[in-house]
């Protein structure tokens, strides 16, 4: 699937599940903070994406994808602030994050709040490498 098709499929799912306008579901909008998605919304979005693209993503896959296999105690420090190694990883999956701005402030549980429509589309793209069409 072409990248442009993936982002439209994700945007369509977000619009359908959250009842926001297409403009609001912009690639740089964060799902939780900007668009107010809750856990049931996320589930709805993921099922809609599965239906339209054939790419199956579980809600629990999200944090795994973000963390890129880095163990919790390396991803963040003892106060659960994202480590340097964690920031490096985030650059790959959430490139919009300004590492300098977030260094020393970004709490592990707040990372998901920065996850954008585009980040989700990238994840779908990556997962759909073999399954998508």
């Amino acid at each position, binding site marked *: 699937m072409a990248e442009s098709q993936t982002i439209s499929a994700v945007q369509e799912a977000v619009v359908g*599940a959250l009842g926001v306008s297409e403009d609001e579901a912009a690639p740089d909008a964060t799902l939780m903070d900007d668009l107010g998605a809750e856990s*049931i919304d996320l*589930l*709805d979005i993921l*099922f809609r994406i*599965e*239906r339209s693209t054939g790419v199956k993503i579980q809600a629990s896959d999200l944090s795994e994808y973000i963390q890129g296999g880095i163990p919790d105690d390396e991803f963040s420090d003892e106060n659960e602030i994202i480590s340097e190694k964690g920031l490096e990883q985030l650059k790959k999956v959430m490139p919009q994050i300004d590492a300098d701005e977030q260094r020393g402030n970004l709490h592990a549980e707040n990372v998901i709040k920065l996850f954008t429509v585009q980040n989700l589309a990238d994840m779908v793209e990556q997962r759909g490498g073999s399954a998508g069409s």
Partner: protein
Amino acid sequence: MKLEGKSALVTGASRGIGRAVAAALAAEGAAVAVNYRSGKAQADEVVKEIESNGGKAVTVEGDVSEYEAAQRIVEQSIEQLGGLHVLVNNAGISRDALIFNMEPTDWLDVMRVNFGGVFNCTKAVLQHFMSQREGTIVNVSSMMGLRGWTGESNYAASKGAINAFTRCAAVELARFGIRVNAALPGFAPTDLVQGLLEKDGGKGILRQIPMRTFATVEEVAGVVTFLAGPDSSYMTGALVEVDGGVGTMLGIGAPL
């Protein structure tokens, strides 16, 4: 036929209301998985009856009170019928006793089968129903879940749990294209309520029912079929009373 091309799983379908539901769904064109726990011969009969009427049905063995079994029941139904669109959670037991005499296992067993079965099978169909964004779930509850009756505290509590679960499931699943409703029979003369009818042939109960008749299992099945099918497409979370008016009444009374 309203359910042509659809597939349905009915739990506890070897006898009583479940059997009538299986037959009614099949009569509307649905392919039916007849679940049973111990009544294999009876379940086979239900399938034979449906087939002789030109319908399609299969038996699926399993105890809905066990989650793994429920998963297997659902998987086999999907596999054998080639899909699944309707789940009727009907399997139920009773262990009537006064609370004073009731053993802890009496309420736990009833809760495990009646409410546990509803939870287990509902959860087991979700991946499939949510993926296809289509599905109807009908829980066979009871008027006992709304009102009190001597000797039925455990059964009534399990049905009350089903009613509450029906509402919550309806709210959570609506956006995924899944409707969840319940039918609440009053008194239908099945094996399950035999004890209630033994005393005086049920006369004492009949006098308390405005319609003065027990529900036939077909009358209950008719409501279940309506809730399972397209005619109830805008209904979800409803607790539909099928009780001959018994729940409507304050008590037996007349002005004079």
